């Protein structure tokens, strides 16, 4: 059952079409990754879904209900650049958030303590937010977004301000949350999306370019490659030219010759024969799995041509 249902949503700012007839369904319990370059419309769509902005046309439903002020209890939201009251402490902010979501005072304090622990900011609970680092604000942002156990959590670039360790922890937290809630996250970090998201959509120029399960996407839209790294770039160029003479297609990038896995498997004997006869210094020959980045780049380039 789709918990998020976006139907023909468009958003126009003067002459700029931020979203063009976007339709999307997200199933309950999914970790949904929303990818796209800067200015593609990711934040605009998340703002529409959180009721912060109104679409020019189309409808959005969360759990079969249109987004109104009164049913925002169903959603949690972490903004791209989370800004909170610098004069408040982390605990006070979570208390305000919980109260505004209609949580009872008795349970609220227990929930806040648990949430501070989960997000790893217990030590900073009584400190003013004004002194928080970007990473701490991001953790606090996640805490305030999930405090009231929403049905859907919208995370706009949730790990962009975190260091590698913090990123890993937050991604684990996001993954663990999927057992109780649906997560809709946008990100630039494709590796992170690939790691945690069950489903992915790519948006470009306000239009959804592709929407698939992550596994299906990788299987159908991206090809694994074989990389041959040489000691010198001229060796790589020489190898590529030799391959071309044998009608084997490959490309060169920074002393690496890259070819599709299917090409490699088809011409494996010939390739090894060429390498054996040559004087080029081959450092490594490696099989690279398909990544979301390949799919992303494919669709970004596809849009340009």
């Amino acid at each position, binding site marked *: 059952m789709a918990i998020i249902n976006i139907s023909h949503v468009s958003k126009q700012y003067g002459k700029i079409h931020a979203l063009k007839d976007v339709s999307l369904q997200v199933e309950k319990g999914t970790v949904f990754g929303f990818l796209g370059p800067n200015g593609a419309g990711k934040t605009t769509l998340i703002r529409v879904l959180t009721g912060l902005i*109104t679409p020019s046309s189309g409808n959005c439903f969360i759990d079969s209900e249109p987004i109104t002020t*009164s049913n925002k209890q169903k959603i949690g939201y972490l903004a791209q650049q989370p800004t909170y009251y610098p004069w408040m402490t982390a605990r006070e902010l979570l208390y305000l*958030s919980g109260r505004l979501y209609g949580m009872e005072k008795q349970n609220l304090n227990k929930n806040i303590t648990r949430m501070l622990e989960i997000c790893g900011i217990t030590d900073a609970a009584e400190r003013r937010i004004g002194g928080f680092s970007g990473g701490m604000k991001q953790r606090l942002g996640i805490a305030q977004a999930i405090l009231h156990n929403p049905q859907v959590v919208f995370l706009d670039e949730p790990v962009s301000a975190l260091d590698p360790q913090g990123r890993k922890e937050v991604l684990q937290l996001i993954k663990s949350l999927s057992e109780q809630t649906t997560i809709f996250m946008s990100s630039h970090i494709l590796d992170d999306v690939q790691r945690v998201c069950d489903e992915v959509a790519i948006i470009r120029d306000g239009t959804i370019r592709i929407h698939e399960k992550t596994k299906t996407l990788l299987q159908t839209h991206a090809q694994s490659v074989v990389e041959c790294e040489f000691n010198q770039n001229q060796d790589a160029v020489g190898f590529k030219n030799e391959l071309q003479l044998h009608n084997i297609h490959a490309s060169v990038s920074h002393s690496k010759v890259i070819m599709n896995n299917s090409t490699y498997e088809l011409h494996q004997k010939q390739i090894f024969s060429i390498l054996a006869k040559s004087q080029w210094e081959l450092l490594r020959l490696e099989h690279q799995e398909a990544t979301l980045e390949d799919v992303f780049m494919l669709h970004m380039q596809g849009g340009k041509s």
Partner: protein
Amino acid sequence: MNIDIIILLSKEWKESIRTSRLLIWVVVCMFFGILSPLTAYFLPDILTYVGATQNVLISVGNITYNDALEQYIKNFTQIGTLVIIIIHMGRVSSEKMDGTIQFLFSRPISRFSLLTAKIGALKIEVCIGQVMAMICMALYSIYLFPDFPIGKFVIANIFLYIYFLTIGVITISFSALVKRPVLAAVGAIAVWLGGSIFGVVDSLGDYSFTKAGEQVVQIVEGFPVQWKPSIGAIVLMVCMVTIAWLRFSRWEPSN
């Protein structure tokens, strides 16, 4: 009252204390409450001293509590107005600029609730400051001018409160209308000056909100209360809040 408004009011109250907004207002109010009777009382001595340094004899008539009241109204309404505008100009627009307002609006609260809470907090803050000013002014005036009519002074301050409240509501309304605090201040100052100019127009000018504060001396002297400035102030506040709410309800974050 709606529970959201109470929660937001409590947040606004804490903010006023933590950001020293309330403290600044109370200190300014107390300053004018203390300074006005002292300046009036010691005016002959000050002028005599100034005259002596320049070999000029300056004589001043008998100083009464009316002089203290005039000092209080003139200084307080001018500087107090600017202070109110400055401390409240960012009440909504700063939240829009910083992005903190998105935190609130992603929750189940209406924009009307937020605007109501902000105006509610303003009412309390202006009241506290003015009560402090009134206490200081009354204590010093009673000591320096024993015939000071305390009862009439308290009643007169209600109209001064209406005046300051109008200034605050205008500022917050502009703050909800525009993107930057400085624009809210410019708008509020423009309405304030417009109100002062409107005040000199025959008959209609009696409805200018600026006259609500100016009648303090007359009320203390026993003249009847003029209700027209208060009616004008209420009408202006309702109009400003309605315009601000209509615009604010359609506001969308752009950055």
